[in-house]
């Protein structure tokens, strides 16, 4: 779909204008505070210099947290898919498992984290498991819903054609569930970096190695390094964008050709 040129320009210009406005507001708040409290809101250039100063540390922490997030997220994708296939088999299986999945979901991660640290020790393993726990549930629920929501007419058609159970699942139910799967994946992608950062906050390990972003947050806040703390926040934000962006790209690749969510007035 082609937009008129001036509309397209506005599409880029408007966020740019609001961005500049926000930076101006930021400076205004910074200088509006009294000198004794000014350190609470570091100015944008202080944050930039924190980046210059702590660059390697921030990068290392981002890689560490990113690795944990990616491993936990990946494990959640694979295992949730298997679990969803099992759950889709019958309402009885779902009745048997759902209450316990709910328990897993309802127990706050903040409570689980210290238990995990005692079980497997601090470090990447704990961070990965915490990320996994936080991503698993939305993925299972959405994928299962997708697998059992297959168009009744299509199922009838496959049954009439005497499709095997295997064919029905892999030629019909799984592709039909893809949009639901991606809904779960999008939710999990926003949760994965948060899970890894929270995990790192409780179960990160800087002893003998590189701490993650959660660990840095603790260090910088205890040292009142506001600029570095803000820089850490920016890195966390970028990490989140990378995850969501990656999933949106996958979603586009898998669905844009056929799914209605991508239909435009190209007919």
């Amino acid at each position, binding site marked *: 779909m082609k937009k008129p040129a001036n509309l397209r320009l506005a599409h880029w210009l408007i966020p740019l204008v609001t961005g500049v406005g926000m930076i101006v507001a930021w400076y205004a708040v910074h200088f509006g505070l009294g000198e004794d409290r000014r350190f609470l809101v570091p100015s944008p250039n202080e944050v930039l210099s924190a980046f210059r100063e702590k660059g390697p540390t921030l990068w290392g922490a981002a890689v560490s947290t990113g690795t944990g997030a990616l491993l936990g997220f990946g494990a959640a994708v694979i295992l949730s898919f298997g679990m969803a296939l099992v759950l889709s088999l019958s309402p009885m299986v779902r009745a048997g498992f759902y209450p316990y999945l709910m328990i897993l979901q309802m127990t706050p991660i903040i409570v689980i984290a210290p238990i995990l640290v005692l079980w497997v020790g601090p470090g990447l393993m704990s961070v990965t498991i915490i990320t996994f726990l936080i991503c698993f549930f939305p993925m299972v629920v959405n994928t299962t819903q997708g697998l059992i929501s297959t168009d009744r*007419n*299509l199922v*009838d058609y496959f*049954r*009439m*054609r005497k499709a095997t159970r295997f064919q029905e699942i892999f*030629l019909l139910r799984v*592709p039909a569930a893809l949009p639901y799967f991606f809904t779960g994946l999008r939710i999990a992608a926003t949760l994965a970096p948060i899970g890894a950062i929270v995990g790192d906050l409780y179960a990160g390990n800087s002893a003998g190695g590189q701490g993650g972003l959660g660990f840095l947050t603790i260090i910088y806040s205890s040292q009142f390094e506001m600029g570095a703390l803000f820089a850490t926040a920016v890195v966390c934000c970028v990490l989140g964008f990378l995850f969501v962006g990656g999933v949106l790209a996958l979603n586009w690749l898998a669905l844009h*050709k056929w799914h209605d969510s991508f239909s435009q007035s190209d007919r």
Partner: protein
Amino acid sequence: MPTPPPIVAFEKVEKRYGDGPLILDRIDFAVRPGDFVALIGPSGCGKSTILRLISGLSPISAGRIVIDGREPGSAVEERAFVFQEPTLLPWLTAARNVEVPMRLRSIAPAERAERARRSLALVGLADRADYYPRQLSGGQKMRVSIARALSIPPRILLLDEPFGALDEMSRDHLNEELLAIREQQAWTTFFVTHSVAEAVFLSNRILVFSANPGRLHREIQVDLPYPRTEETRLSARYQHLVAEVSSLLRSVERLRS
């Protein structure tokens, strides 16, 4: 001329779902190979149920159905079903959709592609092979659905109001095309419809049903010669038959109320 043995025979067939009310009550008819049978009647007369019984999708409650001397549950591949909805897989292109029944029977990919190509050409959609369903119009989707049904040439073709959702122009076109394809592939056809005009135009026999419970009310022979074309609709005989079946249908509907 000796009459060939029936390809489909219903003998005192009854159908109810679970403990529900009787849907079909003592249905008796025999269909010869090559017949084009239209099933018409008020909603709730069980005409779609009859197709499901022939397809083997649903079991009967009493009586007997003989298809080619066998039970409906066996030899399913000889029967093809076209539903009211196109029931295409939205993530597959038109050609891939046509290949689905062949995939289910593990036919080699090269042969699948070739047969799908021919089948799409048959319904006039050769140039839409790589389109996804959402890029096709309602009539085109229905054509793909028919191409899919014909990709493994069936002996019995079951059509459940396939053109019900289309506008009259597309419907007339598809009716003519369906008969043209039938000249090349000799199936026995069962066609459920609400449209009297469609029933008369397509079939050589019309079974008129009454509802609650579904009973076979009357059979009409359509003696219009094949091939039928646009001109057929203008003939006096055609219009006479349409009027006759319409009034029959009205009397059946009165019967109910």
